[in-house]
């Protein structure tokens, strides 16, 4: 599958592992439930380990474990569910997470600008045919009023 990462279309190098599936040798992501149950063995995994979160998950409980993950996948079950925008900002701004943050689920072209401002840097688009069209959405706006992950100073300080 192709994804967008750091504004480039690339082949995805990650596998999303079900809770029952056997651990593999390469990069994979796991649910929070699985991490909580098997964190001792999973922490020894030699390739990349990623964590999948939904807006329901208690973000703050994961914070001490963040160093274990080179990828955090934020799930958007519907594009109208905006909880993970706050998760992304908190991960970047407050908890200093430097790895990849990926949006997965019901993501449309039109959300990419906001998601990027919140610190999400990779995207699994459902509609693979239109993935190239989506690239233009990063430049929908040249400025934002707010303090964002990309621009830690509000616009008025640049005026």
């Amino acid at each position, binding site marked *: 599958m192709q994804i967008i990462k750091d504004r480039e279309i690339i082949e995805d190098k990650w596998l999303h592992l079900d809770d029952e599936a056997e651990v593999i040798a390469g990069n994979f992501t796991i649910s929070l439930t699985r991490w909580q149950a098997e964190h001792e063995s999973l922490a020894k995994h030699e390739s990349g380990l990623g964590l999948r979160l939904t*807006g329901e998950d208690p973000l703050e409980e994961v914070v001490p474990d963040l160093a274990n993950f080179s990828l955090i996948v934020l799930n958007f079950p519907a594009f109208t569910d*905006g*909880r993970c*925008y706050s998760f992304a900002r908190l991960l970047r*701004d407050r908890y200093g997470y430097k790895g990849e943050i990926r949006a997965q689920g019901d993501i449309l072209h*039109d*959300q990419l600008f906001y998601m990027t401002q919140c610190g999400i840097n990779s995207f699994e688009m459902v509609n693979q045919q239109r993935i190239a069209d989506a690239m233009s959405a990063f430049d929908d706006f*040249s*400025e934002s009023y707010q303090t964002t992950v990309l621009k830690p100073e*509000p616009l008025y300080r640049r005026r």
Partner: protein
Amino acid sequence: MYQYDNYDQAMVDQRVAQYRDQTRRYLAGELTEEQFRPLRLMNGLYVQIHAPMLRVAVPYGLMSSKQVRKMADVSRRYDKGYVHFTTRTNFQLNWPALETVPDILAELASVQMHAIQSSGNCIRNTTSDQLAGVHAGEIEDPRPWCEIIRQWSTFHPEFAYLPRKFKIAVIGSDEDRAATKLHDIGLHLVTNHEGEVGFEVLVGGGLGRTPIVGQQIRPFLEKKDLLSYLEAILRVYNRLGRRDNKYKARIKITVREHGINHIRELVEAEWVQIREQLELDEKEIERVKSHFVEPDYDATAAEDESFAKTLVEDATFARWVKQNVVDHKVAGYKVAYISLKAPGVPPGDITADQLDLVAELADEFSLGEIRASHNQNLLLSDVKQGDLYALWLRLEAEGLATANINTLNDMICCPGLDFCGLANATSIPLAKEINERFDDLDYLYDLGDIKIKMSGCMNGCAHQSVGHIGILGVDKKGEEWYQFTLGGSSEADAAIGQRLGRAIPKDQVVDTVVTLIDVFKELRHEDELFLATVRRVGVDPFKERVYADN
């Protein structure tokens, strides 16, 4: 008023381009109806029974004459030559073609107007007091703060997909003309014990199916902390607000379910983390305030003697002044309301020709600015007393001098079943009937302030639950019935009205209003206002008579 710089202009222009592309993708079949829906909503475009409806933001109700002329122009070229003002001081075009909306938005952008976030589950247009900056006794002009909030909330990347819509209102005095206690966040400029001005912050007010009066979350917030505190509330709500049931998704339900104390703890804990980063610079506050400096008022305006003379000579003018004109903080100046509640006209509607006239009169008599009020009327806020008669004559000639501000006929009314896909019952034709029944102006003036608010369904767009008399249309086996409430208020003494009793059939609604007024007249102490009488005697005396008659 605030003037866009290149940054502000670029943002609205880029929004037009973005929406043009979204519309193109939808029309080309690249976006499904379901995918396009939230995108068009965030640009104020609803699809109603007969046609799409476009809601355009009027930030804190303030418009320039240039903008009003553009509204008239757009309504002629792209719609049916009239616009509708809403209770949140926005305006709506009721018949635009979906394909032309990008062009309409481009026209509006050329005069610094937009439809950004005028719908959808995001932070909506910030509203304020229509007398901001011109009435005596104001602690501070709330409009610069509204503008600061407008910029912070516009395209806020974190809060574009909230559990539900989110409305903020700001006032600068004790009187509440903006229904702040019925907003998701209400901000009151207040003075603390040390004499500093800051904000009292209320949260969790709202109307609709579950009307709730907002509660204080912070008695005093320093001005420089405004944005960090708002951001903290929004972040807590974005994470905690319910997403399983849209009727329980507003922050009023979040506050009710978790309790104000718990919400306060969460907000304050979040706030301390972001307070420093989001502290407002004094320079920025001054930059925005510089757009709202007091104009050079004419110090000789009060010396005019013609005003007193015309009052004596023309009784119709005097009646309009008594009802539609209020005092200005500067001697010799007045604030003139232009009623959009003329008999036979849907409340809040105004034609393109009337808009052009209002723009012309604003240029001539009121520093080129026009304001919209929560009660769906317009105002000219800076008229010299010596100009009032000339102003009135021109308004009168165009049907814009109906002298009924704050009377029973100054109703708030939703579009109802005739226009809205959600409504269960009609409202505009009933408003018209009530208006016709109470056609004696002197009788109306004698009754004093009575706020009737009528909605065609439980969504309560006309805020019936806070009407002195609230009327709610309900569907009973395919028939239109109406539920009355009494004693509500959206002002400083905000309260949710009490139910009168069982619903009333459509053909008895106007008679019921007449009965309520009759009972009021009998029970009233001298010049007591309707709301005071209801609060003193309760709903029972009204109830007995209404149901005895039925």
